């Protein structure tokens, strides 16, 4: 009705009058728009801090009602515990390679970063297996938490103005170490366990030094933000959040520390939150569920036994349960092992105060011992096996050096990493350390190092050298 009346009224007006009126109106609007723009531009030039550029720098674009100090703090406390375990298991794994023994160090430039190293023990024999299983499984399980934590703080990346003081510049630079470090470590670790070597550097070098850059960023971040995290955790009760359904989910209250901590852009909460589409407990359950899914579909490869079948995505999980298959991380074919290498011409050379050369038959004639020991890979999988073979201590005695300071074990393998390993005095002396010739009651399979391989309690998989043809016992390490 109203619209029809308007059309009738317009129809009575004279055409040129209407045009003149329209022109005047548009010119006026144009003028107002232009002057407003000019005013804003001048204002922006005078106070750039109050005028963020468009896009993510405008606080209004961040609209999730769940972002806030409490949510970030809950994720932070999970990561605080989890990443510490991840760092400690990783550093222990590095120590397990005994880098202080000559020839073992993959990262000779580490210098002072070697400060914590110690001679890696042979007991308990499951230590390396558990350490590395935790490192890999926990790393995968923390991936969703890391992504959620980054999601929760991402508006801060675009805080405007980007810097307000020298202190803040330095703090933001330290975040490069933290965020870059965590993403770098997760990416290289996750790609490495799947043998996807696309990185233009050595994994050992980069994952170790990347870890130290991350640790530096992590420690300073915890030191600076711990009080904020405590404030955040106290701002809401977890138990109440777990009882709050979607219908009653509200944005977090303004954070009392927001203004005093000189954080521009108003902290983590959204300036204009949307209505929630998921409750806070729903989001936490989704993150936790994703963690359990990622970790749960891998961990079986570290537990072994029937649990290996549950490891759908473990690189040596369900795939490695075929009958008579035992996980390896280097096949005989991959090193170009020929039949002649391990045929009747095979000789084992022992070098000590005298040099002894043994044929395969002579090796089998020496006293044989049985042990049950796990073989555990740095990639996280492990398997416990029955081994029989000759004690390394007996071989040392045979070479005329009953108490060597170290022993270098060499493989027929000509190319690739870990064709040689240096064992410590403790590893050689341990009665469970064998030069094994059978595996689970059968002759050692070729992929497992036929005719002879070392098996050392608690050593990383690659230090159990396969296709051994020479052991040099050293007077000093």
């Amino acid at each position, binding site marked *: 009705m109203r619209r029809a009346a308007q059309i009738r009224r317009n129809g009575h007006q004279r055409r040129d009058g209407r045009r003149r009126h329209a022109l005047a109106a548009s010119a006026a609007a144009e003028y107002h728009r232009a002057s407003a723009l000019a005013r804003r531009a001048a204002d922006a030039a005078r106070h750039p801090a109050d005028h963020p550029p468009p896009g993510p720098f405008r606080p209004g674009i961040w609209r999730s009602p769940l972002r806030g100090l409490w949510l970030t703090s809950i994720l932070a406390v999970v990561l605080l515990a989890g990443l510490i375990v991840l760092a400690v298991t990783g550093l222990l794994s590095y120590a397990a390679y005994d880098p202080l023994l000559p020839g073992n160090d993959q990262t000779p*430039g580490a210098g002072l970063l070697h400060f914590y190293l110690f001679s890696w023990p042979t007991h308990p024999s499951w230590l390396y297996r558990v350490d590395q299983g935790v490192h890999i499984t926990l790393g995968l399980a923390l991936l969703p938490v890391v992504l959620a934590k*980054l999601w929760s703080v991402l508006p801060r990346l675009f805080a405007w103005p980007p810097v307000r003081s020298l202190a803040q510049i330095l703090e933001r630079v330290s975040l490069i*170490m933290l965020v870059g470090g965590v993403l770098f470590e997760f990416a290289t670790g996750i790609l490495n366990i799947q043998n996807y070597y696309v990185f233009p550097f050595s994994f050992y070098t980069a994952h170790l030094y990347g870890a130290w850059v991350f640790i530096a960023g992590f420690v300073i971040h915890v030191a600076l933000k711990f009080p904020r995290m405590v404030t955040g955790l106290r701002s809401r009760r977890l138990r109440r959040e777990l009882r709050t359904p979607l219908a009653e989910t509200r944005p977090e209250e303004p954070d009392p520390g927001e203004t005093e901590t000189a954080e521009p852009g108003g902290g983590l909460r959204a300036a204009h939150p949307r209505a929630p589409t998921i409750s806070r407990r729903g989001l936490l359950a989704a993150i936790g569920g994703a963690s359990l899914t990622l970790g749960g579909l891998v961990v079986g490869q570290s537990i072994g036994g029937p649990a290996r079948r549950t490891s759908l995505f473990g690189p040596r999980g369900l795939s490695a349960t075929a009958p008579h298959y035992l996980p390896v991380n280097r096949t005989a074919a991959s090193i170009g092992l020929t039949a002649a290498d391990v045929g009747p011409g095979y000789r084992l050379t022992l070098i000590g105060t005298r040099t002894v050369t043994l044929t395969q038959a002579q090796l089998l004639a020496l006293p044989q011992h049985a042990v049950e020991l796990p073989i555990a890979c740095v990639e996280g999988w492990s398997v416990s096996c029955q081994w029989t073979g000759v004690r390394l201590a007996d071989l040392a005695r045979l070479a005329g050096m009953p108490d060597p300071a170290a022993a270098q074990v060499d493989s027929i393998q000509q190319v690739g990493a870990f064709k040689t390993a240096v064992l410590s005095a403790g590893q050689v002396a341990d009665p469970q350390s064998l030069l094994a010739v059978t595996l689970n009651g059968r002759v050692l399979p070729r992929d497992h190092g036929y005719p002879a391989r070392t098996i050392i309690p608690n050593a990383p998989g690659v230090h159990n050298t396969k296709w051994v043809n020479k052991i040099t016992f050293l007077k000093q390490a």
Partner: protein
Amino acid sequence: MTTRGRTITSRIRHWYGANPLHLLALLAAFALAGYAVRAVIAAGQFRGFALWFAVAIVGHDLLLFPLYSLADLSVQRLLPWGSSRKRTRPAPAGQVPGPPLINYVRIPAGFSLLLLLAFFPLILGLSEPEYHRASGLTTQPYLWRWLAVTGVLFAASAVSYALAWRRAAARARKQQAAAVAARTRAQQTPHAAPDVPSPVAPRATFDVWPPARQPHRPDSPDLR
């Protein structure tokens, strides 16, 4: 602290923008990181190392995050009865409309995409040559496992959606029954004054999800 000491501290605070200890702690952290980077340079691997650090940050903050946000917003917009902001699906007379679909789609999808993000070299067979050389196994089963897990996730989500719908329907029936009972009671009360409005229970409406079960607290802001 002496007055003089306090002046120096406050001067540093003014110039630097924080407590001097803040500066010391940061410098210690930079020293440690710098020491590690020195070792990377010594190993001749600095370029690749720095490149991957940068790509990790840029790849997450400026690629992965915008992509998954956009995907999430698109799903919310495109789903026929996606989120609580929209009217729920119109239900046939006498039936309760379903809860919003959004979380029953994005959670299984998110889990599945996370698995893909973590295990894409095996799932897509990208590391087949190296994986086979190392293990003697093949990456072929991983794609099928991922598809199967994705299927199970969506199936479980569908079942829980059906259960949530049933619970909502039961709740609505209970509310309706309570409303009818209250109305009948009001009509049967002979002493009720005629000017007192009959205590009719609020009709269950489903314009927004979930149906309101209790009035909002007056002190909390109403987002809708």
